[in-house]
């Protein structure tokens, strides 16, 4: 049975935007088909790209320019295999196309980005998009990958069959962009003439639901039809219709058809999908010619090692070891250089200015505080270089594959590992990446444990403590890296342990299914990696120049005033008398059992803003304490610090205890804000602060007290 002709018209029609305004384009496609690369090429923006599914989880809007110089708004949407959304990122695509997002204009036209090497599967989404009755352009991307796989994809053949523009392109090499821009610049675009037959038994249900959605739920006719088809493919009405409940009438019709099909023992939902593939099959046979039979590809050969049950783990371990070793060995020279320049600048300011509060503010507060943080820039850049390598080559998805087995032991699956691995760099994109997880409970568990992965903000704290613990350049980098690995392992162990606990208590449920596409390997895109490193490095410096600078100034004030009336008081006595010192003393009874004094307490309080602020705070406090002695590195100031009785403050046990505290404690306001936004509730971020900080205190208490009992 044919669908109504106004839905998938048999005659060619032409449409343009409703008014003279420039059309709004939406860019849609399967995950990892190169949408964002194409979006960046068209708009000149630099949105993050990567060679694994799920890089884009939120819409991005940019402006491209037509051949006549007119602006064209382009919306890049997260990838999806189907309009029947099953995860929050896929729901963004569906809601924008259906005009349900108040913050986004409903697109006038749609660019379907299609991976030419996987034409059949990619055309499934295209087929659903054509049902929306809007003008569509197909960007046949990754033509080079298709050729490498022994396929010749004929864009003209596909264009002839569908009746809409089909542009062959290779976004990554900038090929086909001119042709795509020309197609986008056309005042009118034809509607697809491709039609398909809904199974006879399903067609009355589609018509009835479409009418009800139009009449009782206020949907425009074409959206109503697309939604009717989705409801019949996925009976979960909340998932399809979103938070706005469907009318009783529509619910009734849906229930009626569901019961009827169950009674007949027919799986029409499956038949709907099959019928689409039956329509797509001939298109592919027309458009694709196999130029040669393909043996195992390069990716297959690499996967034989990297996904091997033994060698896969060996390579994974080697990559992680190389990462941590590089952080120490490669970063040492640039770090010493920055350290030297900061110290020289501080000395120059001290010599150039008269003694007084302003000079103290500049040298002890600003240069001491900000300088103590920015020396860790080289390590941050190395970390992001490695993360960039993993993301651009396609290894990220393999890491998820390898980690699936241990993840399944705690009730999650390998898909949760991609957000967790991303959290090594920063928990915020990691938490946002959980939008690709279909199961709501698993997503929440992943959000709750993701901040336990040691992020780049912890790096300065670990490095400072390791430098205090193992002073001197004669200590081999391997030993320092070993302690670092221990901290990262502890964080990862925390992730697994708490996920296990949460999956057996708060979020009980069957282990989730995982089905995930592994992209072909690609050579690293060093330009992209360098750009991403530069962006992250700039962000780090920007934070140092804004938030950390502001905290440095405030902390210097709080650590300097009120002044003691006795001018002969020591610097330590002066800080103890200051506002910050008083706050630290209030906290000291709680943290003394962990081996921390009031000065460390000030660092713990201020670093709730961000973990690296701890180093900055220590830089200010110990900079003031050692103000007479120029250029004392913080690690040396730590080694001089003592308790009132003269016992050293930063013993090896305290250094370890501090690191363990930062492994577990939830010390990041930005993460709290993102968790609130992603869970739409304050309950979970508050719970997260409670359980993580509680665990941090308990772990440090046990470590310190046992260490003391053994005489350390």
């Amino acid at each position, binding site marked *: 049975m044919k669908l109504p002709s106004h839905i998938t018209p048999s005659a060619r029609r032409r449409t343009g935007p409703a008014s003279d305004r420039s059309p709004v384009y939406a860019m849609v496609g399967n995950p990892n088909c190169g949408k964002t690369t194409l979006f960046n090429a068209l708009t000149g923006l630099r949105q993050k790209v990567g060679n694994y599914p799920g890089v884009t989880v939120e819409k991005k809007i940019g402006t491209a320019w037509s051949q006549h110089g007119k602006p064209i708004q382009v919306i890049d949407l997260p990838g999806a295999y189907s309009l*029947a959304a099953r995860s929050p990122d896929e729901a963004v695509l569906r809601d924008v196309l259906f005009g349900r997002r108040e913050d986004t204009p409903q697109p006038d036209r749609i660019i379907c980005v299609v991976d030419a090497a996987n034409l059949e599967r990619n055309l499934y989404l295209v087929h659903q998009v054509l049902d929306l009755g809007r003008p569509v352009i197909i960007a046949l991307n990754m033509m080079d990958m298709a050729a490498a796989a022994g396929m010749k994809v004929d864009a003209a053949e596909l264009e002839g069959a569908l009746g809409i523009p089909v542009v062959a392109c290779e976004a990554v090499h900038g090929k086909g962009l001119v042709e795509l821009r020309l197609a986008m610049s056309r005042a009118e675009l034809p509607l697809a003439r491709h039609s398909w037959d809904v199974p006879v038994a399903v067609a009355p249900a589609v018509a009835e639901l479409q009418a009800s959605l139009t009449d009782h739920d206020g949907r425009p006719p074409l959206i109503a039809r697309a939604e009717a088809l989705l409801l019949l493919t996925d009976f979960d009405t909340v998932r399809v219709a979103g938070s706005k409940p469907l009318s009783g009438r529509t619910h009734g019709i849906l229930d009626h058809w569901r019961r009827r099909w169950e009674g007949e023992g027919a799986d029409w*939902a499956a038949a709907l999908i099959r019928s689409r593939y039956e329509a797509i099959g001939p298109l592919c046979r027309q458009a694709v010619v196999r130029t040669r039979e393909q043996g195992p590809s390069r990716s297959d050969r690499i996967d034989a090692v990297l996904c091997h049950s033994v060698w896969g783990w060996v390579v994974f371990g080697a990559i992680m070891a190389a990462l941590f070793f590089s952080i120490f060995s490669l970063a040492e020279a640039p770090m010493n250089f920055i350290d030297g320049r900061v110290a020289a600048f501080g000395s120059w300011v001290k010599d150039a200015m008269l003694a007084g509060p302003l000079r103290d503010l500049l040298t002890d507060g600003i240069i001491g505080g900000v300088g103590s943080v920015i020396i860790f820039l080289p390590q941050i850049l190395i970390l992001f270089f490695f993360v960039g390598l993993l993301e651009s080559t396609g290894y990220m998805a393999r890491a998820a594959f390898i980690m699936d087995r241990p993840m399944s032991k705690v009730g999650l699956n390998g898909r949760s590992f991609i957000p967790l691995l991303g959290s090594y760099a920063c928990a915020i994109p990691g938490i946002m990446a959980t939008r690709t997880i279909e199961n709501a409970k698993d997503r929440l568990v992943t959000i709750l444990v993701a901040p336990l992965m040691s992020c780049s903000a912890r790096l300065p704290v670990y490095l400072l403590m390791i430098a205090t613990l193992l002073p001197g350049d004669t200590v081999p980098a391997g030993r320092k890296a070993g302690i670092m690995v221990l901290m990262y392992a502890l964080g990862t162990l925390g992730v697994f342990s708490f996920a296990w606990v949460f999956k057996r208590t708060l979020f009980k449920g069957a282990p989730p299914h995982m089905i995930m596409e592994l992209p072909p390997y690609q050579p690293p895109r060093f330009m992209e990696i360098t750009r991403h490193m530069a962006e992250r490095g700039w962000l780090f410096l920007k934070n140092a120049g804004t938030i950390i600078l502001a905290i440095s100034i405030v902390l210097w004030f709080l650590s300097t005033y009120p002044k003691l009336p006795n001018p002969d008081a020591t610097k330590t006595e002066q800080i103890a008398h200051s506002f910050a010192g008083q706050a630290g003393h209030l906290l000291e009874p709680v943290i003394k059992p962990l081996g921390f004094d009031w000065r460390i307490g000030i660092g713990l309080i201020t670093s709730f803003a961000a973990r690296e602020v701890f180093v900055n705070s220590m830089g200010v406090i110990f900079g003031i304490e050692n103000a007479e002695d120029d250029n004392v590195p913080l690690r040396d100031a730590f080694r001089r610090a003592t308790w009132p009785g003269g016992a050293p403050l930063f013993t090896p046990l305290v250094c370890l205890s501090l690191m363990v505290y930062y492994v577990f404690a939830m010390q990041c306001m930005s993460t709290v804000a993102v968790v609130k936004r992603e869970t739409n509730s304050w309950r979970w971020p508050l719970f997260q602060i409670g359980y993580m900080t509680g665990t941090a205190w308990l772990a440090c208490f046990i470590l310190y007290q046992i260490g003391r009992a053994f005489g350390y």
Partner: protein
Amino acid sequence: MPASAFSARVQLCQLPAGATGRVCQLTGDESFCQRVREMGFGEAALVTKISGTTTSLCLVNGTRIALNHRAAMSIMVETLPALPAGKAE
């Protein structure tokens, strides 16, 4: 493909590495089954197992797909005689 060419019906996780099968039944929950079908992995699709028992790595329509044990247990396949490389698509 003549019927005699098919042999045992097994779960995808039990399909040996290198073997090719045809998907004959999906037994997981409805949402999972629909997603699998939408990805072109539905009934009648040809699948070649590349590796894995706990987590399976398969080739479907030229795409490498990773499935965890529970997902691979939910997909029943009929084993096919070995095909030359590249024919599984």
